[in-house]
C-alpha cells in the first residue's frame, strides 16, 4: 500500500486509468439524465419535482464522500507524512465543496414545493451547512500562507476535526426529529440499528387507518425511479474520480514547480 504513496508512481497509474473513467462516466450520466428527466414516472405526491432527487442525492453522497477522502488523505499525511495524502486532500476539497453547494441549492429548491419552505433549521440541513463551512474553512486555511507547504498541517488537522460531522449528517434524521425525510435507500438498515427519535409516531398505538401509513417506515423506491438514481450515483462518483485525478495532476505539477524554483534560488548566482 505504501508503494502507491509515492506521488510519481501513483500518477503513472492514475493517468492510465483516467481515460477509462471518463469513457464510463459520460454514458452513465447521459443515461441517468435520460431516465431521470424523461423516461421515469412522476411521483404520486410530488409530481415532477421528484426529478430533483436524481441530482440532489448523488451530490449529497459525494459532498460527504469527498470529505471522507479528504480526511483519509489528511490522516495519512499527518501519520506517515505521505505527501500524496496532502495532495489528494487539497484536490478533493474544491470538488466536494461544489457538490455540497449543488446539494444545498437543489435541496432548497426541492423543499419549497414539497415541504412549503426553502429552508428550515433542522438537524440534517444544519449539519450539511456546517459541512459547507468546513470546506470553506479548509480551502481558506490550506491556501492562507505564502508558502503553501506551511498550510498543509493546520489544514489536515482541520479536515480531521471536521470528520465528526459526517456521521452526524448521515444519522441526524434518526437521532433527531427533522423535517428532512429518512434515508430511502438504506432506510431499513439504519432504521433497524438506530430506531426512531423520541417524539416519533408509535405505530402500535395507531388506529388501523393510520397504522398503514406508519407501516411504511424504511422507505420504498420503485425500480423505475431506482434505475436513474443508481446511474447518476455511479456517473457522479466516476466524475468525481476523474476530476480528482485532473486536479491531482495540477497540484503535483505546482509542487514540482515550487521545488524547482526553490532549487534555482538556492544555487549560487553567476556560475
Amino acid at each position, binding site marked *: 500500500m505504501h508503494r502507491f504513496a509515492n506521488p510519481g508512481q501513483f500518477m503513472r497509474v492514475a493517468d492510465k486509468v483516467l481515460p477509462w473513467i471518463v469513457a464510463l462516466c459520460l454514458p452513465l450520466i447521459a443515461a441517468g439524465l435520460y431516465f431521470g428527466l424523461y423516461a421515469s414516472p412522476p411521483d*404520486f405526491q410530488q409530481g415532477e419535482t421528484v426529478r430533483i432527487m436524481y441530482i440532489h442525492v448523488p451530490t449529497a453522497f459525494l459532498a460527504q464522500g469527498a470529505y471522507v477522502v479528504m480526511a483519509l488523505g489528511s490522516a495519512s499525511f499527518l501519520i506517515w507524512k505521505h505527501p500524496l495524502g496532502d495532495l489528494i486532500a487539497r484536490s478533493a476539497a474544491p470538488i466536494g465543496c461544489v457538490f455540497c453547494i449543488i446539494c444545498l441549492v437543489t435541496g432548497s429548491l426541492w423543499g419549497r414545493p414539497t415541504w412549503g419552505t426553502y429552508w428550515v433549521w433542522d438537524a440534517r440541513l444544519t449539519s450539511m451547512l456546517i459541512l459547507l463551512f468546513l470546506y470553506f474553512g479548509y480551502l481558506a486555511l490550506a491556501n492562507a500562507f505564502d508558502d503553501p507547504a506551511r498550510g498543509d498541517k493546520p489544514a489536515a488537522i482541520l479536515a480531521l476535526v471536521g470528520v465528526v460531522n459526517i456521521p452526524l449528517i448521515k444519522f441526524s434524521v434518526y*437521532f433527531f426529529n427533522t423535517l428532512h425525510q429518512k434515508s430511502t435507500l438504506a432506510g431499513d438498515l439504519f432504521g433497524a440499528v438506530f430506531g426512531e427519535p*423520541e417524539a416519533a409516531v*408509535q405505530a402500535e398505538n395507531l388506529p388501523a387507518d393510520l397504522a*398503514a401509513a406508519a407501516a411504511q417506515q424504511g422507505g420504498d423506491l420503485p425500480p423505475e425511479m431506482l434505475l436513474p438514481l443508481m446511474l447518476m450515483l455511479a456517473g457522479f462518483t466516476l466524475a468525481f474520480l476523474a476530476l480528482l485525478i485532473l486536479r491531482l495532476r495540477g497540484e503535483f505539477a505546482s509542487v514540482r514547480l515550487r521545488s524547482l524554483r526553490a532549487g534555482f534560488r538556492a544555487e549560487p548566482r553567476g556560475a
Partner: protein
Amino acid sequence: MSDTAVRRRSPAAQRKRMRLILVVCGVIFLGAATALTLTALQSNVNLFFGPTEVVEGKVPAGATFRIGGLVEIGSCRIRGDGVTREFVVTDGANRVTVTYEGILPSLFRDGQGVVALGQLADAAGEFRAEEVLAKHDETYMPAEAVEAMKRAGTWQEGGGEPVAAAGAPSGANPCKG
C-alpha cells in the same frame, strides 16, 4: 514481549506509531464529545415536539414551538368563517387540535406528516399555527400506479402501500381550496 517489540522499532517507526495513536484517539475523543453534547442538547436540536410531549406539558407555557405528527384521517375541516382550517395532529397516543389561517401546503392530506409552528392558544390545548409544513416521508411511487390502485379500490389514503379490499374513499380534501 511487547517491550522488546517496541525496542526493536526504529525511532522513525515509533514516531509514526505515536502519531497514529494520537490521530485515532483525537478523532475518537472528539466524536465522543460531540455525541455527548448533542445528546445533552437533544431537545434543542429536535425540530418539533410530538403531541404526547405537548399533552404531557413538556413544552414551556406560552412558548412558540413546532408540533409534528400525522394528520388524523377525516379530521380536517374549514370553520364557519371560511378561512380557518382545523385539523388534528396525532402520534397514535395523543391528539392535538391545530388551527391555521392560510393555504395548506400541496402535500397536505389525511395521514400525511406535518410540522406546524405556533403557540398553544388556551387551556383547551388548541394549537394556533402560523406556518404549516408538510413532512415528506421516504416512500416514492409512480403517480400512474397510484391512479390504477385508486381505480381498483385498493388504495388507502395516508398509507403509501396498497391495502387489500380497503376501498377507502379518496375524494378531494375538504380543507383544500
